[in-house]
């Protein structure tokens, strides 16, 4: 057992361990439901697909977040980028709903990227400022109330309908995932992200336009948040205040649980997918157990620390 574990490549460890933990969560949850209700809903395909459908929103946000974290930066503007995209998309409506929402994401990503790459303001604080500006713009736009505009039929279709028995939202997540994997693995831009995240000065000296790489990563993050916002508005038929607040910290947690280094330069996309699945299933098992919010928070935090203590530790300063 230990030899099999130590033979794992360091990059694979997070993926394997998180996947094992997901199975553990499912088994524990099933033991609980068998004991209390005599049924095992957790292993039914329908239940899992439904969980993945709600997980798709978090998955798309986390995909964008991962691009930024790979650079050693962070995007705290996700909550209100997501909300703004959803509100603008529903407000414009019609055929232009989707392009408008995504344009919001591109615009916010550009501002974030320019501020971080050109003005050299730490992303932690700059994206925080952009987030509150976006919040201000949306409060001003809506008057502080929930907007009355309805989601368009296309948005409804993408978020809530099923195709071949599988929720369309999962296809959207799949599409985003394929794009991200292609970018990271098959394009010069993707390799530049890893290089810049490892050591920006070295990447710059080897001829990479690191500033444009940073801008590009933030734009991807903004677009991903916008897509998630459009889907979420479609899922709940309208946009509402603070709809993005529940996504920021779980997205960061999912990326890190998946083995991406928070300081940048290392991480695989499959890890992020596993991390998202872990968080979504953990949440759903806890809600099946009717765990109160207090217990959920404690378990949630303990799981993150516990998982990272197993495989996410830094090297010692001295050998």
């Amino acid at each position, binding site marked *: 057992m230990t030899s099999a574990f130590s033979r794992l490549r360091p990059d694979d460890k997070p993926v394997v361990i998180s996947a094992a933990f997901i199975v553990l969560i499912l088994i524990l949850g099933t033991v609980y439901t068998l004991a209390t209700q005599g049924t095992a809903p957790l292993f039914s395909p329908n239940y899992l697909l439904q969980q993945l459908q709600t997980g798709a929103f978090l998955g798309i946000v986390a995909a964008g977040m991962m691009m930024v974290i790979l650079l050693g930066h962070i995007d705290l503007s996700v909550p209100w980028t997501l909300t703004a995209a959803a509100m603008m998309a529903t407000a414009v409506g019609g055929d232009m709903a989707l392009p408008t929402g995504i344009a919001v994401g591109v615009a916010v990503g550009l501002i974030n990227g320019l501020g971080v790459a050109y003005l050299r303001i730490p992303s932690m604080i700059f994206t*925080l400022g952009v987030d509150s500006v976006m919040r201000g713009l949306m409060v001003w736009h809506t008057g502080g109330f929930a907007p009355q505009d309805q989601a368009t039929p296309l948005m409804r279709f993408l978020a809530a309908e099923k195709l071949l028995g599988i929720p369309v939202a999962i296809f959207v997540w799949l599409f985003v995932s394929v794009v991200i994997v292609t970018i990271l693995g098959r394009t010069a831009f993707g390799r530049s992200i890893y290089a810049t995240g490892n050591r920006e000065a070295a990447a710059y000296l080897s001829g990479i336009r690191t500033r444009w790489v940073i801008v590009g990563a933030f734009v991807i993050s903004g677009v991903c948040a916008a897509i998630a916002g459009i889907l979420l508005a479609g899922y709940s038929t309208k946009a509402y205040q603070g709809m993005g607040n529940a996504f920021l*910290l779980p997205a960061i947690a999912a990326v890190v649980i998946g083995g991406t280094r928070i300081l940048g330069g290392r991480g695989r996309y499959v890890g992020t997918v596993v991390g998202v699945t872990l968080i979504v299933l953990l949440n759903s098992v806890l809600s099946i157990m009717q765990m109160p919010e207090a217990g959920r928070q404690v378990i949630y935090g303990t799981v993150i620390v516990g998982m990272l203590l197993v495989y*996410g530790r830094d090297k010692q*300063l001295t050998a």
Partner: protein
Amino acid sequence: MSSKLANLASSIRQNRAFAGAVLMLLALFVLYNILHPRGFSSAVLIQNANESVAIVFVAMAQTIPVLLGGLDLSVGAVMTLSACIASVLVNGSPLQIIMGMVATLLAGTAFGFCNGLIVVYGRLQPIIATLATGAIAMGLALFIRPKPGGDVDGDLNWAVTNSLWDFVDTYGFFDPDAAWFAPVAWIPVPLLIILVFGAGVWLPFRRTVIGRTIYAIGSAEGAAYMSGLPINRAKIAAFTLAGFFAACGGLYLAIQTASGNADITQAGAYTLNSIAAVVLGGTSLLGGVGGALGSLIGALILRVISFYFRILSIDPLLQPLVEGLVLLAAVSLGAVRVFRIKNRLDLFR
């Protein structure tokens, strides 16, 4: 005399960001009082000070991990946890009240200590370790206070949220109208609390070996290790002190509002605002430069800006937008450095 002036001048030059923050605060606060119909009065000062204490303490708490080059995303949650503990314990006989306050501060300090242990011996990045422990703190706070509410001693609430005159009057230490007392009777108690607990703990701490080690780690951890500085102890101390300051903020918030409220959104807002205050106060997020007094000033700047909305007839719907723009503009001032740099490699520190 002239050498003292020269010292002062050079210290201002070395702490340009801090001096800028102080000037900005003074300008904002004086203008606020000029515009306020009852400006420059003790009542206005008391009200302002009351509303600033919690964020000031949380900002000071955030500063210390930031000086290490890390970040503590649990300060808002630890503050909320402490406030919830205080809302249960701080009542009854005077002895019980004092024990309750001590227990509250100890709980927050212990939580910070655990953060330090996880960061040092677990070797996790502070930002992600405290993201998780922050969730745990919120969970514990919800266990203690599933619904907002609480029972905090009324006398204490009155005494610490008003002027020194009321403080002395409430507990009857001596005649509050005594002539020798008159010159200081107007000083708000919350302001004194900030000064005594904040500056009184931070300034001596900064001069200790541990305090200096924190700065050294933020500048260059490898060099600090090679110089034989106590790296591990300094990191644990930094998070412990952060927990203590956060607990001070929580304790005061509980006394001020006479209740505890385990509100996840509010805790998150305090954490994010603390980062903003730290940056406004001239502390570098890269570590090694700055100090908790700067963050004190930074937090006050954030608060004064929000006070303006009460006296200027700005549409309340515009308030979040203006706050965001001011924050963005303030941090963008730091970008001036970029345009002075000649060798572009210097950008990538």
